[in-house]
């Protein structure tokens, strides 16, 4: 019995010596990251650990990195760590197409809001001014014709009366027709622009701002081991497109 225990102890010591020897034989190297964007960059190391470190010490050899930052496209790459060396790595992530599309939608939303808020009232104000001026001109033309009709009644100048009838009154009637047409058109444009402004205001109020759904984040966070310092947890997320 004592002999078997002795053999077991010798084996265990041998294994311990061998294992520690192999550990000491594997050298390590460092990776020093510079990121763009710098603050929000995260990465997953070897498909297991989600980290945000800017400097990392790893065993020599190839390591798989998955870099991601909010609004950016994920970058899946393999970096080689050389023993006893520090390597500078610059990682720049492109904006994701979804984010680019979202930004465009957002710009369109803001632009539409700005135009919708300011342009229709300006057009309506202009149309109101035009309608008012046209209406005043219409009244003036009407009064001018009435004045000429009064002149006919008070005039004692046969030549003047003839001029009134042949030239001045027909000209004033023509002016009145033009002024009336313009007043109706201007008032119509004014009413239409006021109505359109109301409709646009209503539609603007009913709009919803575009919301950015970062699908890259969902991909990144899917099936990632989060290093908690005490063991670790596995998490999985999925998205279900409803539309």
């Amino acid at each position, binding site marked *: 019995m004592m002999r078997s225990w002795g053999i077991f102890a010798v084996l265990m010591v041998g294994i311990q010596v061998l294992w520690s020897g192999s550990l000491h034989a594997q050298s390590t190297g460092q990776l020093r990251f510079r990121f763009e964007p710098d603050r929000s960059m995260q990465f997953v190391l070897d498909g297991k650990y989600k980290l945000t470190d800017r400097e990392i010490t790893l065993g020599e050899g190839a390591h798989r990195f998955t870099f991601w930052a909010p609004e950016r496209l994920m970058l899946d790459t393999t970096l080689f760590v050389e023993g006893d060396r520090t390597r500078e790595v610059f990682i720049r992530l492109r904006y994701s197409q979804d984010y680019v599309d979202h930004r465009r939608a957002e710009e369109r939303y803001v632009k539409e809001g700005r135009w919708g808020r300011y342009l229709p009232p300006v057009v309506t104000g202009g149309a109101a001014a035009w309608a008012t001026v046209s*209406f005043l001109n219409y009244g003036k033309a009407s009064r001018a014709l009435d004045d000429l009709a009064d002149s006919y009644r008070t005039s004692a100048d046969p030549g003047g009366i003839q001029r009134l009838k042949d030239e001045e009154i027909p000209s004033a009637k023509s002016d009145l027709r033009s002024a*009336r047409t313009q007043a109706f058109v201007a008032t119509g444009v*004014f009413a239409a622009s006021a109505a359109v402004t109301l409709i646009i205001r209503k539609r603007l109020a009913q709009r919803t701002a575009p919301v950015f759904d970062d699908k890259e984040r969902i991909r990144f966070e899917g099936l990632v081991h989060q290093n908690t310092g005490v063991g670790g947890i596995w998490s999985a997320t999925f998205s279900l497109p409803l539309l």
Partner: protein
Amino acid sequence: MRILLAFAILLTLLSGCYKDNVDVSELNTNPFDRDYAGPSVFEFDETFLQTVNIGGTNVLYQVIVFRVKEELFLSPSSYSVQLRDLQNEDPNATATPVSPGSSLYRYQRAPAPGQQICLELQLFNNQSGARAETICATL
């Protein structure tokens, strides 16, 4: 915005208030108008013989008196009367008021007893005449 819309509707409604009520073809009520279509402005009053002493010589004239119906004027107006004697075509024929401010006018010519004398009369102002009317008188 609703106020603007109401304002637009109000303007549209008010636009209907101005109307073109003047019809040139119906403007014929002023006696100074060449197209005057009302009753006669001149009215024969009387004709008689009158002896006028010119340089110690008695000259006999036929006087024709006519009246301008000023009540037909649309507004009080000053005027003169242009006269044409259709019988003798005298270019110097003139009508003068019987008294200043009177609506009665007289015309004197060589007597023509038993002959109808017709005068073409026009209201005249600013080098232009109104509708011509004819009155006739027989001594």
